[in-house]
């Protein structure tokens, strides 16, 4: 599908960042409230799909030169690596660790190792969704 609609292209350039930032917000919100890596990943993928609709596959590939299969693998390694850290401490698999740190700008913040696992989930969801959409969409 070739589209050269100026309005949708201009809007997309702005809306893409809004969706992306919202995805990051949802991702971090997920620790205590609804949200998390899965929804965040889906939102990010939807932002990229919007780019695909407004422009074409070649342009988007140029702007975001990401191999989505490698993205899936990276996400899986990150998730499994976080979960496997528990093996080193000889506690049951998937046991997560957290502590409170005082960070500049944020003040006192609780940092959880589960967040890294969620980041892995996020990458896997983005990679898998984009892989599916691209393999259906590029087939004409």
């Amino acid at each position, binding site marked *: 599908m070739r589209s050269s609609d100026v309005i949708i292209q201009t809007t997309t350039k702005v809306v893409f960042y809004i969706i992306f930032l919202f995805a990051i917000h949802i991702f971090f919100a997920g620790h205590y409230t609804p949200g998390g890596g899965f929804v965040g990943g889906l939102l990010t993928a939807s932002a990229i799909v919007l780019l695909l609709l407004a422009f074409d596959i070649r342009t988007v590939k140029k702007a975001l030169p990401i191999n989505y299969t490698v993205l899936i693998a990276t996400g899986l390694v990150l998730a499994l690596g976080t979960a496997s850290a528990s093996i080193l401490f000889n506690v049951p698999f*998937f046991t997560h660790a957290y502590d409170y740190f005082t960070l500049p700008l944020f003040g006192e913040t609780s940092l959880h190792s589960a967040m890294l696992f969620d980041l892995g989930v996020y990458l896997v969801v983005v990679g898998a969704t984009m892989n599916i959409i691209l393999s259906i969409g590029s087939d004409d």
Partner: protein
Amino acid sequence: MINLLLFPVLIPFLTAMILMFFPKRVSAQRTVTVIGMIASVISSAILLYTVMRDGVQAVTLGSWPAPFGITMVSDPLSAGLVLTSNLITLAIVFYSFRSIGAGREKHFYYPAMMFMLTGVNGAFTTGDIFNLFVFFEVLLMASYVLIVLGGEKRQLRESIKYILVNIVSSAFFVTTVAMLYSVTGTLNMADIAAKVSEIGQSGILTVIAVMLILVFGLKGAIFPLYFWLPSSYAAPPVPVLALFGALLTKVGVYAIMRTVTLLFPHDPGFTHEMLMILSILTVVAGCIGALAYFDLKQIVIYNIIIAVGVILFGVSQMNMAGLEGAVFYLIHDMFIKAGLFMLIGVIIAITGTSNLREMGGLLKTYPALAWTWLVAAFGLAGIPPLSGFFGKLLITQGAFEAGNLWGGIIILASSLIVLLSVIRIFIHAFWGEPKPVKGTSKQIYRGLFVPAALITALTVFYGVGTEWLRPVMFDAAEILHQPSIYIDAVLKE
């Protein structure tokens, strides 16, 4: 090492991830797969040793207390099955080098294999029924990739059937798990078992038990739910067929074993009687199929169905002899099916056909292949001292002890038909006048024959070393017979 029992699940998983980074580099793919598989075999051997020494191992993920978190449990049965699956997969990896072709190797063949092994090992290890569903999905997803990979017309047609059947059965599985949860309020298998024996196995729980048997029966190919299996399994290339034939149906069988011995052992008059009748029908239907075809693949595939029937018949007897025989026969069957499929792969590579009528006289040109086939065939039929003998002996003994005389006799008679069906392959393919064959290079022949012969040699050791393996099988059967050992290992820690 509290997490030891997870290693056989995690190592193939990690291997698959690493392989996904460089799909196009075939030699690197092969090297990493072999390293990962060897590590996985070693870890599962250590696991089996630990389980035999220290008793049932259990870990609840995320440090949650036992019935609330996901529990992974390794008893002699599951550790033995995990070791078996790893050994078979390692042999099939070597077998694939010379048979699967670079096209498939570049399109995630090895990662799919590793993901499938992750699912298989996970399903054998998990102690949580919803997690069992998840691992079933993991192995099914990977098997969808393996069955369709290559995209031949026949593969595409059969994969639609295969995916459809499995999606329907997975939907039933989730529904059944939801029903089970609404009745017992727990998903932990040990906790379910404890609760069911506390509140008694009422009508609704028996319904759920039957639904679980049907769901697992659809995956494990019992009568009449095996209809999809023969044509679907024949579609992919031989290494994939060997992997499916050796591992996938056995996961279903294992799940049925757990269902009727651990979760719902309280109404044997209904569930076990039904399982026994179904398993005898499965044996009969498999025997008819094994004799009806002149196609190498189909003959061995119908032998899978016979074996599923024999194992489940042993389970349905619910006495020590029957259960021990079932465990013995289950592991024997995994090895021997892998060996048989790999050997027919060699025959197909040499003759270029799987039709028995178009081959003959291979004994003169390939004597080693012929005699290995004969050993494997005798092992399958259970001629002492080969591997199938002791399992079947115990199953028959169990049947006689439980008073199911006719069932035992049918199982014994089926051995003769099994022997006939595989000897028919020997007669047609190896005896008679040599027919013009496509032939194959020495290198390919060796690459295919050596892993197949090694697996066959393992089955011979399995048969001859019965006395040495007996403690493992005995412990496995004892836990099936007395679920309280399993329940205590999970809940009282």
